[in-house]
């Protein structure tokens, strides 16, 4: 198990470093002169040259990359071109909202997805099963920015049930819950479909197991026991799906935040891309991807607890 953990950690480190390289390298190639951006619109050639030297932009690529890594280690993500603020601070303010949204969405996905999956398994090959299975395909086919707008149109504009956007509190407060429900719903459709599939296959397995046969033979059919048994069965795929879904939700949150005007890292990133605020783009992408890697690491490590086989690997 120790080796397993060490291997995972090493892998994560390699991925993180590879990622910094991709992010740094790709924006290094980007058009536009960062020195010009920093120096401002009215800067002269000399100003720009001075900025370039002071930022080390005249150094060879590897030196710059090395410095970049060094700064990253101290959680120094640089300065935003537009606000001249440390990016790490700006991200720290916004990240909680993005995570709030992603978490709410994943909870929604689990809470809706798995029971529906179990239902389809119990009603296997009936109309209900076919309908729900096909509907789950619809779930992954709707662009979430559009769904978000539609939800907003219906539930906040027409019906006025929920606020039409913004996020000021976390989802466990009453206000936060009202704020998060529409964006989380818009965001989670694809994940609901995935969790539904897991619920379905886990339940099918349970229904075919000896345990159920004996239970049936004995004449019991305690729904809750079956359900818990199914959940146990679904633990590993559930965890895996949790990892991948979380990534998908983080990615989707970038767009959903735009629709619902949530001041999260997604909005921050999109603005930065539009204003060519490269340091911000760089850091935001890095933070989102690193978060994803960390969540997957956590998932991997949880396997150790859940799946006894891994201990012996």
């Amino acid at each position, binding site marked *: 198990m120790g080796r397993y953990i060490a291997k995972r950690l090493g892998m994560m480190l390699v991925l993180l470093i590879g990622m910094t390289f991709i992010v740094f390298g790709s924006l290094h190639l980007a058009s536009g002169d960062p020195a010009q951006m920093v120096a*401002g619109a009215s800067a002269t050639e000399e100003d720009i040259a001075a900025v370039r030297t002071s930022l080390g932009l005249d150094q060879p690529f590897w030196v710059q990359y090395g410095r970049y890594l060094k700064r990253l280690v101290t959680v120094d993500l640089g300065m935003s071109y537009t606000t001249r*603020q440390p990016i790490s601070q700006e991200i720290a303010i916004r990240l909680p909202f993005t995570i709030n949204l992603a978490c709410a969405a994943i909870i929604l996905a689990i809470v809706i997805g798995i029971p529906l999956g179990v239902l389809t398994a119990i009603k296997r090959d009936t109309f209900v099963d076919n309908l729900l299975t096909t509907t789950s395909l619809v779930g992954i086919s709707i662009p979430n920015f559009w769904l978000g707008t539609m939800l907003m149109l219906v539930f906040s504009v027409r019906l006025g049930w929920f606020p039409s956007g*913004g996020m000021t509190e976390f989802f466990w407060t009453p206000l936060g819950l009202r704020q998060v429900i529409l964006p989380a719903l818009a965001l989670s459709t694809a994940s609901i479909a995935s969790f539904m599939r897991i619920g379905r296959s886990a339940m099918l397995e349970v229904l075919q197991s000896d345990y159920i046969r004996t239970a049936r033979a004995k004449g019991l059919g305690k729904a809750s026991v079956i359900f818990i048994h199914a959940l146990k069965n679904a633990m590993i795929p559930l965890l895996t799906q949790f990892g991948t879904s979380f990534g998908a939700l983080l990615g989707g949150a970038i767009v959903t935040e735009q629709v*619902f*005007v949530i001041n999260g890292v997604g909005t921050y990133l999109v603005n930065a891309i539009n204003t*060519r605020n490269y340091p911000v783009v760089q850091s935001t992408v890095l933070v989102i991807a690193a978060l994803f890697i960390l969540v997957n690491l956590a998932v991997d490590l949880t396997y150790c607890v859940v799946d006894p086989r891994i201990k012996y690997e």
Partner: protein
Amino acid sequence: ASDAGMFQVVITDNFSGMDPLRTNDRASTYVNAQIYETLYFINREGDIVPLLAAELPSFSEDGKTVTIKLRDGVLFHDGTPFNAEAVKYTFELIKDPDFGSARASLTASMDTIETVDDLTLKIGLKYEDGVLTAKLAHTNSAIVSPTAQSNQDLMIDPCGTGPYKFVSSVSGSNVVLTRFDDYWGDKPAIKDVTMTVILEEATALARLETGEADFIPSLSVEALPRVQFMQGVTLANHDSAQIYYVALRPNSFVNPLMANKDFRTAIIKSLDKESYVNFVLEGHATVAKSVIGPRVFGYTEAAEAADIGFDLEGAKKLIQDNGWADEEIHFLVPTSAVYTPMGEFFQANMKAAGFNNVKMEMIDWSAWLTESKTDDRFDVTLAAWSKVTRDGTELLEPNWHSQVSARNKINNDAFDQLVYDSKTTVVAEKRVAALEKANMMLMQEAYAAPVFNNENNFAYNSVKYKNVDLTADGSFYIKEFEPVD
């Protein structure tokens, strides 16, 4: 957030920071106008009145020395006193090329700045400056506290003399202000203010509708039909000094033909600005025929004769005669609720006139600000001008003077001279004459085509607040607003 006493302002533009000397975007101006003050102020009638100054400036015989008396008993938010030192410090900061002022030209005419006594300032000028007083009313020349400026980053931690002082902010997203109790003037009626940035106008409107927002200072035309029917919301407009124009770059590296006046004329003739204003803007603006608009110093009706105007047949003929149909025109359009449809519409216009190869490029507005100044970036672009100073020289000089403007690059000596003439005298008639000529030259030479003079549309919660209004340049002063009862 439904704090009863909190006045909720929703801004639909990107907000960059709270240093008045370094920010020039609309959202920042909205915020900074509450926190900082200038020496002079242009009121709704267009008259310049003293604000932090005690009286209007007195010029010497030759007009090259100006003495300014300051108001007594003014305090900065950090408790330091406002005095001649502070003004001198601020102006020198603006002058300092290393500082990176948003509008260094505000102090361009100042040669020496001396403090005569604690409340008197003597400024030596390089030339007789007709725009000086107006410039001192510009938010970018707001007076900052020297101690605060040198000790903290005003971008995130502002400190001025204004009626409101800074409480907290979430970078780029909202700013909370509260009444400054040691304010020298009348105390504002509204105590607490939150200004929130919501870029999606639809969402902003939803907030207004649900009462989560009290005031939106600028609304796009698209929003108006919706706001009209909102309960308890008053929609108002105010004609403004803002001018939208099409800028043509005569020495573009993209298409060298831009140097040809007829080519530019053909472009301008193809633009159907009347239809644009009447239909797309649904009449919520007036068609502009002069670069210097009616609400700006330097406007004359005579200048409107120089406007080339929409002439589809003329444009077609020019294009056909010269075989310009396939000439590439690089049309750079900043993305915004106003510019995007305008760009699309004008591109369709140019196409209808026979330009088959108009390459329209959409670019974020703040990126446009920097990139449009680079050389081989565009042939034609859209731009707007709006200044607190509402002075024609202030419009022409930064945008077209060959020494100052990097964007439009007309490099026309005669024009430069006219602009120079317009600013180096305090005699109003002389200034107007020079500005008229320069204005006409811009239009005749097809360097620029005025499109429309904007109306500022704004909406507020009239159940809770009254006296809500904008100034002609579109900004507002919350200290004038009052709660109902």
